[in-house]
């Protein structure tokens, strides 16, 4: 299996694979989100407790999942880059950071929009929202560190270390915030609890989550291909592709 892993690591093969996968993933992503939205907005019944406002979960929960998922991808790539020196993994981590930050931001805003009718305020120090806020700071820290070091290869390795340190801390931060929240919060305020998930409500949620994941991969692959083209501009296979206009 390892040989295949290394073959994939060669940017030429990766580029060809990404080139084939991107349109397929894009179509699947559009389908999933389309169906998910339709199901979520039209088919899923009204929640007896929260009325229609619960439908925001169809963007809030997938965004929150993506913000965590993308950081895990970045941490895994950082490990691949630091231990096996896979330059490709570093590119994936670098281009994924803005996407992760975007989803974290979305999770925060949609979370507070969803919470407003329930809590009456735009910001509530709910455990999940607080964790998302801290995760946003971590994303911004990662991007800030990478952009402030001039030497490209040092910046990549420094960012990889930060990502690994971050991935150790995220669960700790999450549980300490969770613990802190239960400590200080009298039980009466209903938390950002998911409404009792009825099966017809759950399906659109899963469709949307899968759709968001594919959206991440499509955008990430596109950005990775851009960086590969930029960095391998004078390599043979790129020049050949330019000639054949097959970029």
């Amino acid at each position, binding site marked *: 299996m390892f040989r295949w892993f290394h073959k994939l690591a060669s940017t030429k093969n990766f580029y060809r694979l990404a080139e084939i996968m991107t349109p397929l993933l894009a179509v699947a992503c559009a389908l999933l989100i389309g169906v998910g*939205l339709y199901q979520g907005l*039209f088919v899923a019944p*009204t929640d007896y407790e929260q*009325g*229609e*406002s619960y*439908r*925001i979960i169809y*963007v*809030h929960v997938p*965004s929150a999942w993506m913000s965590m998922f993308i950081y895990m991808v970045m941490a895994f790539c950082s490990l691949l880059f630091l231990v096996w020196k896979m330059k490709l993994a570093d590119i994936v981590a670098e281009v994924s950071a*803005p*996407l992760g930050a*975007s989803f974290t*931001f*979305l999770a925060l*805003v*949609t979370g507070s*929009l*969803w919470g*407003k*009718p329930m809590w009456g305020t735009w910001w509530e120090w709910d455990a999940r929202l607080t964790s998302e806020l801290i995760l946003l700071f971590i994303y911004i820290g990662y991007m800030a560190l990478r952009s402030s070091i001039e030497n490209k290869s040092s910046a990549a390795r420094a960012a990889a270390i930060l990502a690994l340190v971050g991935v150790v801390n995220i669960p700790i931060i999450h549980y300490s915030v969770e613990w802190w929240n239960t400590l200080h919060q009298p039980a009466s305020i209903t938390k950002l609890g998911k409404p009792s998930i009825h099966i017809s409500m759950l399906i659109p949620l899963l469709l949307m989550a899968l759709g*968001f994941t594919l*959206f991440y991969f*499509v*955008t990430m692959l*596109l*950005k990775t*291909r*851009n960086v590969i*083209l*930029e960095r391998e*501009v004078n390599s043979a296979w*790129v*020049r050949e592709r*330019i*000639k054949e206009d097959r*970029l």
Partner: protein
Amino acid sequence: MTEFLAMGGYAIYVWPSFALTAIVMLANLFAALTRRKKVIAMLKRQHAETKT
């Protein structure tokens, strides 16, 4: 239709959430695509220069 749009009175929370999500996601995608155009144009220009 209008009843659907009203979202049971929560319209001002539901629709902005969906709209903002769409905007931010498409902005990321759009940035990737325009970047791609720029890179391809740069490569072509560079290729044209080296060829002549």
